[in-house]
């Protein structure tokens, strides 16, 4: 078994599921002959044909609306938005139909679709190619919002997303698409949705994050360990529906929490986790909940983008403040 990157794990999951389920189709811009601009769908059209791996007209609204129609007829479409920053035209179809049809028809029409999008900054991309907007979707009832942070989790969570009977936003942290390889058996084993993954056990502070920031957060935990601070690291993975229990259990143990995300701070998903901690874990807290996030600015063009993204240094600093507060 060869070790693969996160993006190769995405391809592997798509190929596995298309092979085993005829109702799975892939559609989007450049997903066919070109195999996607990041090569997530490379080789799929050769294997499964032009209809099951469909190059669509260049219109995100069309991709999203056709995806709803396919899913309503019992297909399992996996739509690609070429970049998460291009997803806005899809939002009406996602919010008004994909996420809502089950509810508004009392279960008569369902939308078992996946909307994939390369997400986040840090690859020196042009303007509008670096957005992290997961919080715009976590507020939409009926949607799952999933972000993998490793090749194994990309494979297992994407399989789960395709098999899920409801629509899933699958945001792929493109900064770590090819960052490292790990062995991911192509065994069709899905990982559970709706659960957080505890990536590192610790006792002094809980670091909560998702997507590409898992990398910096794990590095921060290493740095803190060198100074004798034991940090627990949680990859939320499925933002909604939220597995708050796993976060609460950890914070009840450590008494401190630092939430790390790439999206802007105000009304980012970190605000929801902080609010839940205030509601449900107030008396377990030894220090205020801290947030290390993108600033409330547009992500700058790439000369400055690394100053915007949460760094290991900023996470360590916040964790130390939490420790110092009690």
């Amino acid at each position, binding site marked *: 078994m060869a070790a693969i990157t996160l993006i190769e794990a995405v391809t592997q999951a798509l190929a596995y599921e298309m092979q085993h389920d005829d109702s799975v189709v892939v559609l989007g811009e450049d997903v066919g002959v070109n195999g996607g601009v990041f090569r997530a769908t490379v080789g799929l059209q050769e294997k499964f044909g032009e209809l099951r791996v469909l190059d669509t007209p260049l219109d995100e609204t069309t991709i999203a*609306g056709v995806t709803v129609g396919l899913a309503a007829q019992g297909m399992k479409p996996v739509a690609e938005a070429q970049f998460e920053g291009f997803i806005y035209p899809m939002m*009406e179809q996602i919010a008004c*139909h994909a996420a809502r049809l089950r509810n508004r028809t009392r279960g008569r029409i369902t939308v078992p679709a996946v909307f994939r999008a390369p997400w986040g900054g840090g690859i020196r991309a042009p303007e509008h190619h670096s957005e992290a907007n997961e919080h715009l979707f976590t507020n939409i009832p009926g949607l799952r919002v999933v972000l993998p942070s490793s090749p194994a989790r990309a494979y297992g969570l994407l399989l789960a997303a395709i098999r899920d009977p409801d629509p899933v936003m699958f945001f792929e942290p493109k900064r770590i698409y090819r960052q490292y390889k790990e062995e991911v058996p192509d065994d069709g084993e899905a990982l559970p949705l709706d659960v957080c993954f505890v990536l590192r056990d610790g006792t002094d502070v809980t670091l909560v994050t998702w997507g590409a920031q898992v990398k910096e957060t794990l590095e921060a935990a290493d740095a803190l360990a060198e100074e004798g601070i034991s940090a627990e690291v949680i990859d939320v993975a499925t933002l909604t529906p939220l597995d708050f229990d796993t976060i609460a259990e950890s914070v009840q143990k450590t008494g401190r929490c630092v939430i790390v995300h790439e999206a802007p701070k105000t009304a980012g998903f970190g605000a929801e986790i902080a609010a839940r901690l205030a509601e449900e874990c107030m008396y377990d807290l030894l220090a205020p909940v801290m947030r290390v996030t993108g600033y409330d600015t547009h992500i700058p063009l790439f000369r400055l983008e690394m100053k915007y993204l949460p760094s290991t240094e900023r996470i360590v600093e916040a964790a130390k403040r939490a420790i110092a507060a009690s």
Partner: protein
Amino acid sequence: MPIAASFEIEYLQYLDADGKLVRKDLPAFAKDMETMVKLYKLMVSTRVFDAKSIALQRTGKLGTYASCLGHEAAHVGIGSAMKPEDVLAPSYREYGAQLFRGVQPREVYMYWGGDERGNDYQNEPARHDFAWSVPIGTQCLHAAGSALAFKIRKEKRVAVCTIGDGGSSKGDFYGAINIAGAQTLPMVAVIVNNQWAISVPRRIQSSAKTLAQKGIAAGLPSIQVDGNDIIAVRKAMEDALDRARRGEGASVIECVTYRLGDHTTADDARRYREDAEVKDAWTKDPVKRLRIYLEAHKAWNEKKEKALQEECGDWMDNEVNAYLESKVQPVSAMFDYTFAEVPADLAKQRELALSFEKGAH
């Protein structure tokens, strides 16, 4: 200069406003009085149903309701041409098509009466149709996606979407006919041009001479029909459906009709259009002209009309009673259809909501 491309839009009409035939090449169904009477009955039923809906709203028994008065030929023409296995993706006004496909008046009342169960059509073939789509034009892409599913699975089925003149301005409409053209999808897009998008007249939507010609941009056979002539609507629909079923792709049909009522019961059209225009539109009434045609063929008379009106009245009374007697859904219903299974986190919110129902506070 050489011509790169050119086009013409045909206008199809069989029955003029006075119920007289203007063409000799009548389609077979139009000569079959049994079929024509069936279509007439449904058009009348739709009108009686519509009047009942407005009466319910005016007496506080229904929320906002979107009337279909004047659209009966267009809507029944669409619904009656489709096969059961086809799929309809309507906007929110096409009751004539939907009643034909098995939607029950009580379901329409339920929906506009504030209950999601109205979208859970119980009877086939409506049960596999889409529910009403309020976000304008979005349903066209659901038809395109459905048509793509049929093509992938090699099923001889056609997806039909309906949209208004205003809706034809939306990108979703163009996106749908565009991909349907590019992928040769079995789809029919019907523009029910009733001249008014709430208060905005047709001329403000587009300077195109016809809305049908928007289909030309997508490479589709496109036609304009008299939308108050059931024969023309149904014939154009049959041709388009046949073409789609033969694997020859999608079509666009513009049905030119008139919204005789307000946009919805929350609207007052007297604010923005002249009485004279509405009065003139009544002279083109689709129901009246079909009745004249049927009577000329001795297939209809005053006695039959009276019996039909009574029959429709009884049907609607029965449907209204079923609606009014229906119990409000339990509070848990708010949560139970958000996902296939209620997630643990949402279950806690459901528990909270239910605790207030039990008077625990």
